[in-house]
């Protein structure tokens, strides 16, 4: 099941790549670089969705103390961290050409960077306890507080920017979307989401197998 979903996701990604490189029209103002949009935005969507899953599973874990929720949370967090890294790598590449700079304190950029660090804290806490059960609880707490704080961070960095307008002519959103571009970005979101869930499920199975192995070793 899990590998089937992951394979489906991977094939959708192939279709997406074909669409991005050969099918979708080139954006009039930004040119070829705008094609990174079809990777960048779906990756960002998946990273935030993953963090939602981490927080929800964290709540369920603290509530029911069922290890399965923790395994699900850590699987989502690992996927989320990978996709957040993709966002942070593709963003500056696009920004360098579209905005003229690799880094700017654009609110969404800032938020993604902080998200990456919250994920980092999540894993550091998890791995820095002698008692694994304690690490799971700590990680859940970090995930929950992080998810609750993210909207606040978003609002505050938006507010901060409104005081200091960027000397940027180009808008990140670009012009209203052409229908073909809409289809491609829709395909991107679909492919990334399916692929993410496939990988997450594989990771979850791995975590379950590891737990079983530990149980057998203990016997």
């Amino acid at each position, binding site marked *: 099941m899990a590998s089937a979903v992951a394979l489906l996701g991977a094939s959708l990604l192939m279709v997406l790549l074909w669409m991005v490189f050969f099918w979708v029209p080139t954006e009039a103002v930004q040119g070829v670089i705008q094609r990174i949009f079809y990777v960048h935005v779906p990756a960002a969507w998946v990273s935030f969705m993953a963090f939602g899953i981490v927080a929800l599973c964290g709540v369920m874990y603290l509530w029911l103390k069922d290890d399965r929720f923790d395994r699900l949370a850590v699987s989502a967090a690992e996927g989320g961290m990978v996709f957040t890294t993709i966002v942070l790598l593709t963003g500056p590449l696009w920004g360098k050409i579209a905005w003229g700079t690799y880094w700017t304190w654009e609110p969404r950029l800032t938020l993604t960077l902080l998200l990456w*660090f*919250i994920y980092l804290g999540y894993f550091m*806490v998890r791995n820095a306890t002698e008692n694994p059960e304690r690490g799971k609880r700590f990680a859940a707490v970090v995930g929950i*507080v992080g998810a609750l704080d993210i909207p*606040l961070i978003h609002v505050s960095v938006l507010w901060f920017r409104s005081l200091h307008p960027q000397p940027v002519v180009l808008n990140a959103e670009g012009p209203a979307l052409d229908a073909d571009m809409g289809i491609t970005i829709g395909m991107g979101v679909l492919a990334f989401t399916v692929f993410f869930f496939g990988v997450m499920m594989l990771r979850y199975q791995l975590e379950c197998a590891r737990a079983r192995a530990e149980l057998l070793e203990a016997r």
Partner: protein
Amino acid sequence: MNAYLRQVYAVVRKDLLQELRTRQRVATMGAFAVLVAVLFNYAVDPTIVRIQNIAAGLLWMTLIFAGIMGVGRTFALEAEDGAFQGVLLAPIPRDAIYLGKVISNTVLVTVVVALTVGVFGLFFQLQYGTHPVALALTLFLGVVGFVALATLFGAVTAGTTLGEALLPVLLFPLLVPLVVYGVGATGRLLQNRPLAEVEGNIRILGAFAVACIAIGAVLFRHVVED
């Protein structure tokens, strides 16, 4: 409810009494705040920037760094000799322990912030603006929000092998709203801007503090469970 407040008070009293007898945390935090102001003096070239113009940012950074030192010690002190086990064995709810610790830490960090503000006034001829009460309120609400999060994560890091070194990693990303609105309000108050300009910031700082306390009170029991 009355009984609950008494339990919170018992924790506050214990923490403050301990601090009063050792004076460890206030002394280290206070010395840190003063010495960092000395270093700031040499870190900023007055022929390039006026230190008064960036005082708000320096003030908040001092608050956060000194606060991390002080609050991080809360649980480290009690980890010795298993003293915290005793606190947990006491027949009081975990959130009462958390609230008690938040209050005692707030008292300590507020003392240090007051000292820092005084030292900045002395060292950098910092004028406190025309609304000192609003300035004090801004800083106080910032301290409460900071302490609420730092106490929760201080309990987390005390339970890890990395200890207090992990605290900034967990805390700093979450403190962004605090710094944005806190420094925004403080900077404008120091420049004598009208109160109406910072009212919104102070409200948000208050809301942030309340939200952090609520989150901490709910989650604290899961942190100190064992």
